């Protein structure tokens, strides 16, 4: 992909984000923060590439360790973020109809 293609995806995604987030009900703003937090851990993709890279040089092996540390940090966020969001969302209930 060339830079312009990537930039196009980015700009369009910003617009999608703008409209999608305005449609989120204010009552769910806390779960919104928790779930955006969880999905921003998609940075784990970069961490995995670094952690799995063959390491011959010194820089390479440092890079592997940094990648592994980042994988662990991002995993805390992925599992913790989605779990805490699920826990919050499970609490939102409607009035019981009688």
């Amino acid at each position, binding site marked *: 992909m060339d830079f312009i293609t990537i930039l196009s*995806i980015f700009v369009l995604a910003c617009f999608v984000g703008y409209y999608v987030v305005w449609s989120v009900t204010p009552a769910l703003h806390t779960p919104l923060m928790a779930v955006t937090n*969880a*999905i921003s851990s998609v940075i784990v993709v970069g*961490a995995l590439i*670094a952690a799995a*890279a063959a390491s011959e040089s010194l820089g390479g092996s440092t890079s592997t360790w940094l990648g592994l540390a980042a994988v662990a940090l991002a995993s805390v966020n992925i599992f913790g973020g989605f779990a805490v969001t699920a826990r*919050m969302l499970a609490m939102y209930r409607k009035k019981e109809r009688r």
Partner: protein
Amino acid sequence: MHHGPAAPPWVMLAYLVAGVCFILALRGLSSPESSRRGNRFGMAGMAIAVLTTLLVVSYPSRGILEAAGVEQCSVSLYFESCLREGLTNLAWIGGAIAIGAVIGLVTARRIAMTAMPQLVAAFHSLVGLAAVLVAAAAYLNPEAFGIAEGGLIYPVSRVEMGLGAAIGAITFSGSVIAFLKLNGNMSGKPILLPLRHVINLGTLAAILGLIAWFTQDQDPWVFWTLTGLAFLIGFLLIIPIGGADMPVVVSMLNSYSGWAAAAMGFTLQNSAMIITGALVGSSGAILSYIMCRAMNRSFISVIAGGFGGDAVAGAGGGATDRPWKRGSAEDAAFLMKQAEQVIIVPGYGMAVAQAQHALREMGDLLKKEGVGVKYAIHPVAGRMPGHMNVLLAEANVPYDEVFELEDINSEFARTDVAFVIGANDVTNPAAKTDKTSPIYGMPVLDVEKAKTVLFIKRSMGGVGYAGVDNELFYRDNTMMLLADAKKMVEEIVKSLG
């Protein structure tokens, strides 16, 4: 224009699917019913992104394929090569994921709902740090990311990498300070350094200058200095911001963590990361905007800091000499029992006192008496957007009894009792009438229009975060209930029962 071998189409497609799943995850939050499905979309997107990456990084190298004399890799060849190429790294990666998963799941299960703001701040700091680590890893081993030729990193990638590291570092150190303030390890009072605006702007300019320099010279000192300065500026930016402005700070850091992910997505040419980064970035930015609007303050004035500490001392005893009425739990119970409708206005004080469960019990008893009960939420009540809604949901208050400011404000005039618990500035009528008030122009809940206002407060001494006295206390139709919020509500429950 630049960059190494393109990823196979199925890989790009998988990342696109992951990105779409993340969009659907946020879209689901438009109503509580669809939100749970949305969250599952988010999990699915993350699983797709992670599994795809794992497959790509463990895919047999060209050498192995040629040695086997095949174009396409079979399943058996895949596993064989995983073993032969000694991808012990995969085991390490599995270990790292497992450690993170255990910590994350245990935290998510144990955390008290009132501690949600600090948890979110802590999670933001992890994303920030992970972004810095990934940028550093890419800097040290650019070949692995396909962003270098002959040891020279492409200039575009250097900018992206530098931005990713800088935004990640700001997110990290800023979130750590926000966490310490929210968690009470650090006073919520703004810490004002002399010349702080000069220092901050200078540091920011230095970071941008270094990123520009980095495109010309990929020497280690440039990368590490700019990362180090970014850690410093994150810290400096948040210490002058007071506790009451934390909803804006937490939203802003949320936004930063998104931009950091997007910057790294540019480096890796990964559409899932770019889409996610843009979504999270705009989400945080919109939440910051909503919070600022709800306080009638500009984003710049919040970021400049210095406004509203946690413990602003009672401003002048003179004001409290004015006459006010004190009520007891029995009075409150009696008044509410007679009412047709009661609107409950919760604020941060309810969270601090953990009074939400007692409050719901009170609401239930009132409903049994035939009283209509509603809840009114100001956008900046609490320490993060939607904080009160989560606490009420935790206490089993149905969400269709909970209303936002603009949906319920006109109802106060037709309401018998407004019950204010732990909120202060957001109910202050001075915001509408007193042009000299620091909170003038801020949208407030019109509680004073109710026939009677019951206002729970610990004592008459303290004032709200804005440091202004509340006109409401001295009105004829206001009855002050001076006690700890939870104890007072429990006593009212007793009197009702």
